[in-house]
């Protein structure tokens, strides 16, 4: 659906986006992840034809953003970082205006306005001035505006920024609900969001794509070995963590045991094993046979946060890393 090849955007002194490549298949939700200033917004603006690329190509639904911008725009719904609202307009009036801009008219327009309002749960503020709406409503009107013409592709720039936790959940659910019929690219710098909503992640840092993969693969990739988290407690309320550590260390296939934290009557350990050798059964047996309680045993999925930090850190210039290392 979306094809990006060597896309580059240069400003007078800086290169905001530097030869990035990625593809998005139809119906996918793709998370665009990166720290602030990584080039997420610039990339999205190029995809929506708001900015022209300095070099490289991008096609949306087979149309080039430079050659046939009108065709591209017809197929894209875009929610910029700040929802593009006119404070002096009423919600329904605004949606009608946007619908007309996108080429809708007559009964079709009214139908789409009602549908978008319902979909984004803004029917109750239809007659309110946009300038008087709360942040959450403004964001949802922005979303309604993006889906009004039923576009193939939705491009959402930080759709949950500035919302409260409840609204964030609602917005995420809304986006997930839209996924079936639309291809969605959403940018964010909030990691759990990607884990929860997206199937595919594109991590971008300093204008370059650092990693493109599915969330699960990325987690597996970031750590070569598997690891499990154990919570062990002593029978009599006392536990010697070092004893557990030595015991577990002695098992076959275990490469490293870390004591992560002490809890009331025991401790939490993270056990890394060599890839492919499942040791969970051995671990459980070892703990129980030693007379300890096994309170918890679960695979430790590396959070995207850690992956993200790892990936973006490795991009740090060598001299800078050295300078930091040299400091006492």
């Amino acid at each position, binding site marked *: 659906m979306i094809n990006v090849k060597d896309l580059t955007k240069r400003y007078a002194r800086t290169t905001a986006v530097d030869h990035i490549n990625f593809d998005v298949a139809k119906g996918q939700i793709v998370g665009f992840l990166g720290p602030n200033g990584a080039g997420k917004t610039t990339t999205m603006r190029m995809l929506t034809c*708001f900015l022209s690329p300095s070099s490289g190509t991008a096609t949306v639904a087979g149309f080039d953003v430079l050659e046939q911008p*009108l*065709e591209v725009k017809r197929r894209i719904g875009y929610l910029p970082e700040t929802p*593009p609202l006119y404070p002096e307009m009423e919600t329904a009036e605004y949606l009608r*205006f*946007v619908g007309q801009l996108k080429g809708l008219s007559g009964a079709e327009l009214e139908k789409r306005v009602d549908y978008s309002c319902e979909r984004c749960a803004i029917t109750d503020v239809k007659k309110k001035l946009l300038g008087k709406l709360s942040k959450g409503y403004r964001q949802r009107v922005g979303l309604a505006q993006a889906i009004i013409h039923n576009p193939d592709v939705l491009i959402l720039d930080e759709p949950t920024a500035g919302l409260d936790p409840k609204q964030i959940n609602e917005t995420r659910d809304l986006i997930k609900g839209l996924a079936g019929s639309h291809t969605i690219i959403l940018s964010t710098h909030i990691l759990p969001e990607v884990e929860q909503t997206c199937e595919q992640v594109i991590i971008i840092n300093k204008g370059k794509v650092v990693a493109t993969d599915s969330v699960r693969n990325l987690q597996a990739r970031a750590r070569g070995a598997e690891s499990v988290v154990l919570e062990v407690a002593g029978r009599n309320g006392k536990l010697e963590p070092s004893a557990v550590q030595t015991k577990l260390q002695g098992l076959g296939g275990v490469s490293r045991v870390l004591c992560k934290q002490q809890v009331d009557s025991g401790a939490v350990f993270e056990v890394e094993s060599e890839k492919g050798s499942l040791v969970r059964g051995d671990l459980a047996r070892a703990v129980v046979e030693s007379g300890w309680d096994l309170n918890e045993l679960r695979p430790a999925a590396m959070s995207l946060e850690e992956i993200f930090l790892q990936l973006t850190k490795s991009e740090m210039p060598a001299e800078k890393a050295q300078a930091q290392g040299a400091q006492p």
Partner: protein
Amino acid sequence: MRNILVICRKELGSYFASPIAYILLTLFGVIFGYFFWVVLGSFLNYSMEAQMSGSSYPMNLNEQIIRPLLSNVAVIGLFFIPLITMRLFAEEKRSGTIELLATSPIRDIEIVIGKWLAAVVLYAGLLLFTAINFTFLFRYGHPDWKPLAIAYLGLLLQAGGLLAVGTFISTLTKNQIIAGAVTFAVCLLLWIVGWVDYETAAWAHVLSYFSVVNHFESFARGVLDSKDAIFYVTVIFTGLFFTARSMESLRWRS
């Protein structure tokens, strides 16, 4: 064409949803009303004097009231035009709504013409106030309506040109005050370049050619001079062309 009307309607809606349109209409109404009252007063005095002294100098509503008044309007308009155009693009750039327009499947030139058209319609609304005053002349006298119509056409053409220039300037900045101030300075310059008095110098002729007010003189007399009409139309096209170019250049800058 449809897209132009969609944009134009939305812009007019914005003018009238905010106090801008009402303030401009009120101010213009008051200022023009004052001028009308003053000119009418001196016309009445003059006609009374003429009656008493028995002179038979012909009195003419067109020449003695309408023409000087509309020439004044041409100048008052210069002060109102920056207020009309300054928000057109600067506001959209500041609030980010320009992203909505620029990513909608419509051409830049349609956005530009739509916005400019809304500005022209609002200016025409201002002129409507002058028409209210003139209806009194028609009620109590017999002015000729044809030169009046031509003068209105001239006013619209002149304003159309300056509004196009103002629209262009509004695309250059995010700041409405800057857009307004620069437009005002340009309007003022385009008026006073007509004051040069170096008869023989060629550049003086060139300068005075650019005076938007000088070109209005033929219209005020009720003469449709193609030379002046073409000047205004050229200004309109040039202004709108540069506005569209400027919008396009936004895609290359940040």
